[in-house]
C-alpha cells in the first residue's frame, strides 16, 4: 500500500489537501484536510448582533449573499419580524444571481478545464475540449466571464455591490427599486437566459427542463451543440457516471423563501429513494478528527476552540452528521429533494456521482433563471422593501438557507444584546468532513474510495474530477 498526498488543490475556492492510501492502483482510504482556519465563530462572540451582518458574509467571497441571508434569517427569527415581501423578492433575485454566477464559475473555470489536461491527449475529443475549456486560454471563458459579470450587475441595482453587501437585513433589503430599475433587472435576466440558451444549452430553457428522464437526455444530447452537450459527451466517454459515488443521503434546507413556501422545498432524499421530512434536531457536529476541543455536539450549544496539537485529528473542519450519518448537499441534492424529474431519475438509477452533480448544477441554473423573471415581475413598486426591525431578546436562533454548494446554517445564541455563541455549518463542512468518532468518513472521503488511479498516483485526473464535482468551497468549510 502506498500513501499519496494531493495538494495544493486549486480551483476549489480556497485550498485542500487529500491523502489517499492506494492498493494495486485503487484508493482504499481517503483523508480530506481543510488547511485554513480563521476563527469567525470566535470573532463574532461578544459582538452586537447586527455586526454579524458585516462580518459573517466575509467568510466567503463566492457565496457572500448566502452567508448574509443566513445571518439575516437567524436575526429575523430573534426579532420576530417578517421581512417585507419586496425585500424577500429582491433577496431571491440577488441570491439567484449569486448562485447562478457560482454555477457558471464552477462549470467554466473550476471543473471543465481538467478535460484539457495533457493526460487526455490520446482521446479523440481532446483538441476540441482544450480549445473550449483550457484554463485561462479556452474560448469558453471569453463568453462565460462577461456573461457572469453582466449577471452580477443585478447586485449593482439590488445590493450596491458584490461580494460583501449590507443590503440583506432582517426586515428586508435596503434599496427600493423603481420602474426603471425593474426594467434594467429584467434586461439583465433576459440577457442571462439568452446566454444560457445560446451558449450552455443550445435550446430553450423550457425544452431543457422538459427532459423527463435519462433516456430522453441521451436523445436530446445527440447532435446538439452547446457546452452542456459537450460535457455529456465527455462524461460518457470517461464514464463519469461511475465515478465518485456519494454516501446516499441528500439534504436540502429549502431555498428561495417567499411569503408562503420556498421555491425548492426542505427535505431529505434517503435510502428508500423518496423525499422525507428533515429531522433538523438530529444535526450534530463531531470533532474527533478535527483540530478542535471537545464540546457540545449540538450546534446550538457548541463552541469552536482550536486544539492544533490534538492526536488523530487531521482537519480544521468538524464533521457534521444527520442522525449520525454523513450527508451530501449541493445543487443535485436540492433538485432531487425538490422532485426535479430528470435528476430524480438519474439519482434513482445511479446515485450521486460526478456526472449527476454537474448536470444538477446546470439544470438548477436553468430553473433559477426562469424564477428570476417571475420575481422581477412580482415586485410591487410602491410597497416597502424593508420593515423596521430592532430589539434582540435573549435566546437561541437559527438561520437555514441553501448556498450554491448546499445547506448553510447559522446557529446564534444571544444574551444581553450581544452574541454569546455563533456556530456555522457550511455546505462543504458537510461534503468534505473528516471522519467521525465511529471512523465513518465524510462524503468526499467515501466518494474517493474505490477510485482507480492506476500508475498516475497523485496526478490521476479522476481524483480532480471527483473533488471538483462537489464544487467545494474550502474558505467556508472551517471558516
Amino acid at each position, binding site marked *: 500500500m502506498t500513501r499519496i498526498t494531493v495538494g495544493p488543490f486549486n480551483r476549489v*475556492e*480556497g485550498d485542500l489537501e487529500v491523502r489517499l492510501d492506494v492498493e494495486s492502483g485503487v484508493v482504499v482510504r481517503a483523508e480530506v484536510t481543510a488547511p*485554513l482556519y480563521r476563527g469567525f465563530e470566535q470573532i463574532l462572540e461578544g459582538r452586537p448582533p*447586527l455586526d454579524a451582518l458585516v462580518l459573517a458574509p466575509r467568510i466567503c*467571497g463566492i457565496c*457572500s449573499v448566502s452567508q448574509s441571508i443566513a445571518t439575516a434569517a437567524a436575526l429575523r427569527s430573534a426579532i420576530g419580524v417578517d421581512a417585507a415581501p419586496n425585500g424577500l423578492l429582491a433577496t431571491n433575485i440577488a441570491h439567484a444571481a449569486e448562485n447562478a454566477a457560482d454555477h457558471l464559475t464552477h462549470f467554466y*473555470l473550476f471543473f471543465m478545464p481538467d478535460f484539457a489536461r495533457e493526460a487526455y491527449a490520446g482521446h479523440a475529443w481532446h483538441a476540441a475540449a482544450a480549445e473550449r475549456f483550457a484554463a485561462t486560454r479556452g474560448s469558453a471563458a471569453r463568453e462565460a*466571464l462577461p456573461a457572469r459579470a453582466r449577471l452580477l450587475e443585478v447586485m449593482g441595482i439590488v445590493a*450596491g455591490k458584490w461580494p460583501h453587501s449590507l443590503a440583506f437585513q432582517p426586515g428586508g433589503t435596503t434599496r427600493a427599486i423603481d420602474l426603471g430599475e425593474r426594467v434594467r433587472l429584467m434586461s439583465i435576466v433576459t440577457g442571462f437566459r439568452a446566454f444560457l440558451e445560446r451558449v450552455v444549452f443550445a435550446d430553450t430553457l423550457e425544452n431543457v427542463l422538459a427532459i423527463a428522464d435519462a433516456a430522453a437526455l441521451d436523445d436530446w444530447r445527440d447532435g446538439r451543440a452547446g457546452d452542456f452537450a459537450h460535457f455529456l459527451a465527455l462524461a460518457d466517454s470517461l464514464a463519469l457516471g461511475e465515478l465518485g459515488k456519494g454516501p446516499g443521503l441528500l439534504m436540502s434546507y429549502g431555498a428561495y423563501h417567499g411569503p408562503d413556501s420556498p421555491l425548492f422545498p426542505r427535505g431529505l432524499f434517503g435510502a428508500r429513494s423518496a423525499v422525507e421530512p428533515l429531522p433538523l434536531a438530529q444535526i450534530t457536529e463531531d470533532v474527533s478528527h478535527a483540530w478542535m476541543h471537545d464540546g457540545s455536539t449540538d450546534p446550538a450549544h457548541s463552541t469552536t476552540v482550536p486544539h492544533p496539537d490534538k492526536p488523530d485529528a487531521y482537519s480544521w473542519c468538524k464533521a457534521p452528521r444527520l442522525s449520525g450519518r454523513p450527508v451530501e448537499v449541493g445543487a443535485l441534492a436540492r433538485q432531487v429533494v425538490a422532485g426535479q424529474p430528470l435528476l430524480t431519475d438519474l439519482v434513482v438509477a445511479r446515485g450521486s456521482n460526478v456526472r449527476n452533480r454537474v448536470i444538477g448544477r446546470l439544470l438548477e441554473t436553468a430553473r433559477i433563471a426562469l424564477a428570476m423573471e417571475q420575481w422581477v415581475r412580482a415586485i410591487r413598486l410602491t410597497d416597502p422593501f424593508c420593515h423596521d426591525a430592532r430589539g434582540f431578546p435573549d435566546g437561541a436562533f437559527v438561520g437555514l438557507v441553501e448556498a450554491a454548494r448546499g445547506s448553510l446554517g447559522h446557529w446564534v445564541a444571544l444574551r444581553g444584546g450581544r452574541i454569546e455563541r455563533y456556530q456555522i455549518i457550511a455546505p462543504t463542512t458537510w461534503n468534505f468532513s473528516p471522519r467521525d468518532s465511529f471512523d465513518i468518513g465524510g462524503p468526499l472521503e467515501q466518494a474517493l474510495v474505490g477510485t482507480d488511479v492506476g500508475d498516475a498516483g497523485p496526478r490521476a485526473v479522476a481524483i480532480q474530477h471527483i473533488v471538483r464535482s462537489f464544487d467545494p468551497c474550502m474558505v467556508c468549510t472551517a471558516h
Partner: protein
Amino acid sequence: MNGAEGITNVLWLQGASCGGCTMSILESGSTGWFDELRQFGINLMWHPSVSEATGEEVVSVLEAVRDGKVRLDVLLLEGSVARGPNNTGRFNFLAGTNRSIYHWILELAPLADYVVAIGSCAAYGGVPAAGSNPTDAVGLQFEGGDLGGALGGGFRSRLGLPVINVAGCAPHPGWMMETLLALTSRELAAADLDGFGRPKFIADHLAHHGCSRNEFYEFKASAETMSQRGCLMEHLGCKATQAVGDCNQRSWNGGGSCTKGGYACVACTSPGFEAAENFLETAKLAGIPVGLPTDMPKAWFVALAALSKSATPRRVRANATSDHVVVPPGRGGGKRAS
C-alpha cells in the same frame, strides 16, 4: 514589467482569505480577465482559482521561483497572513507542502520586484484580525494601522518599494487591475502611495465624493431606518466622509456602490475597519456624531449642520425618510411648457 521577454510574471497566492478579491477581479475585462491579462503581456504564473496546475505542478512553480530559476515580477497576496498558533502559521498551511503560507510568503516576497497586498486582509489583517484575532492574522506590512505585519515595516521589494496595498473588502476590480497595470508599465513609484501604502489614485478621494445622497448630506436630511433615501451619516453609521476611495465615482457591478445600495460605508479601505462595533449605527456624543469629517473644525460642522437643517426644503426632508421619492423636484418651481 516587460523584462527581457516583454512578459510580466505574476504570481497570485491566497492566505487567510475569503476569495472575494478574486471574485471581484473576475468581473474585469470586456472579454474576460484572462484576455485582459494577455493583452498587457501579463503571465499569470499561477492563481489558485483559475490555473490548470495543481498539486506537485504548483509546488514546482513555487520552487522554481524560490531557487531563482524563474523571474518573479509581481507577487500578489489575497488574504491575511495567519501567523498562529505560536508563529507556526499552521492555521493556514499550503496543502501538499507541510508548510504555512506565512513561511512561503517570507521566502518568496524578497524575490519579487513588487509585492502587492490584494484587499484589506492582506494589507492590514482585515476581518480575520477582528475581535480576539484567533489566528494572529496580520497584513503583509501592517497590523491594523501600525507598521509591522508579516514582512516587517522596513521591508522593501527588489525595486525598493514597500508593499503596495490595494485596500478594500472586496476592492473594486478596477483598483486591482489599474494597480497591476501601473506596475507593469513601471508608472507606480513609492511616492504614489499614501501613508498606509495605498495607491494615491484611489486614496486621494473619499468614498463620500460623488455620493448620490449628496443633496441629503448638504441639508443634513437623514435616513432614520434602513432603506430610506436620506443621508446615512447622522444615524445609520456611514463613514464615507472619512474613508478613502473613489467608490462613488465608479460603478460597482454596473452602477452600484454601498451608499447607493442603501447602507453605510463601513470604511473597508481603512486599516482596522473590522474593529468597529455597531457598524449600522452612528456613534454620538451629546447628540453629535463622533466621526465627523477629519479636516473640518467640529464647531463649524455643527453650526453649518444646524443652519442647513433649518433651510432644508420640504421635498428633501420628506424624501429623506421615505424609500421612494414622495416629493419630486420642480413642483412650484420652473414650469414646463406643455
